């Protein structure tokens, strides 16, 4: 077992390689692994956050849906109410219109009746006078008779 300069040379190489590894090699991999660890942790955290956000969004959407349903139901109620109100109003109007029409028709009928009665009365008077003339076959005092006939006609 003879020692020589090889031992010294190997020792020098040892320290040079150690220095090189420490300066040029170790930090590269140490940083890479550190970065990867950080990236994975960040990714997991982001996933967590996304899941939380999703849950919040779902809650929110459920709430919105409920609200929308309530509003819609309110609208429908209101519409129904308004519709029945319109129908009622229409009915009232129709009823009034009907009444008015009936009143108008009644007055028309009354007028017609009056007119007919008037006509009838005149005709009756004429017929009565004609009849009386026939009966009497004589001239009667036109004026006295007319008074009599008119009295008779007004009694009709």
């Amino acid at each position, binding site marked *: 077992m*003879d020692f020589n*300069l*090889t031992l010294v*040379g*190997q*020792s020098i*190489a040892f320290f040079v*390689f150690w220095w090189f590894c420490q300066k040029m090699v170790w930090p*590269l991999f140490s940083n890479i692994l550190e970065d990867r660890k950080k990236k994975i942790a960040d990714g997991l955290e982001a996933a967590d956050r996304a899941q939380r956000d999703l849950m919040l969004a779902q809650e929110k959407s459920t709430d919105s849906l409920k609200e929308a349903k309530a509003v819609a139901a309110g609208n429908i109620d209101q519409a129904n109410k308004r519709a029945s109100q319109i129908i009622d109003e229409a009915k009232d109007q129709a009823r009034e219109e009907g009444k008015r029409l009936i009143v108008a028709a009644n007055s028309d009928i009354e007028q017609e009746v009056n007119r007919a009665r008037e006509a009838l009365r005149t005709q009756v008077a004429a017929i009565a006078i004609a009849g009386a003339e026939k009966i009497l076959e004589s001239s009667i005092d036109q004026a006295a008779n007319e008074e009599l006939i008119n009295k008779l006609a007004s009694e009709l």
Partner: protein
Amino acid sequence: MAELGSAGLDAHGVAEQTVQEYIQHHLSFLTYGKHPDGDWGIAHTVEEAAEMGFWSIHVDTLGWSVFIGAAFLLLFRYIGKRATVDTPSGMQNFIETIFEFVDDQVKEGFNYDNHRIGPLALTIFVWILLMNTMDLVPVDWITGLASYIGEHVFGLEHMPFKIVPTTDVNITMGMSLSVFALIIYYSIKMKGIGGFLAELAFQPFGKWMLPFNLIIEIPTLFAKPISLGLRLFGNLYAGELLFLLMAALLGIFQLPAHFAWAVFHILVVPLQAFVFMMLTIVYLNAAHESHAH
């Protein structure tokens, strides 16, 4: 696993080799150093290499060691530069797996705030793992090619060329002594020189038993780098030696034997890298730990 054929033929089949020469060839290093006459140059024989003593360098093992370490770090840097957070490529995934494995071990075993320990553990683990893996390359492939080139290009006969750096005790002890230096450095940095010495002198039996404490603690301290380096060296050297013996002695039967031993060795290769890394983490954690109450 190894070059087919018996040890009778050497890597380039020119000269006859005995089993002993074959193994000797595979266990020696391509050495560059200071010859006894003062010149610097390649050692041509084992004897020449031995005469060089301390002032020599194993060009093959240190070269492979530096090459492997640089290749792994540059590859990691290349992939790391192109790495993405969202769409990691296959290679990025693979490196991230290793990174996280090492990072977990450091987080578990090291309880202090020191961002240099992670890179240290990663460097040690991957570097040693790859150096050990060279043991699974068939013993004659690269060595044989190198010997051939050595002989025909550089005129070096029987040029040795070892490709598994961790079978060189210089390499493993170079690393473990570096770790030892870090143990001392961090002990003194965290606890002060007084605290460090107090730990050696006043434990485990209290200050009245100081000599006994020193007798226990000082060998314990020095045993750390020695066991760390020799454990790695011993495991890989034994594995390598067994591959060589099979290649040298078994002829055609070396193929199943190599396969069986390689399967077993695949367990040893990462295990020893892991053990070296874990012990480094544990030792440095202990160096940061303060026993003073």
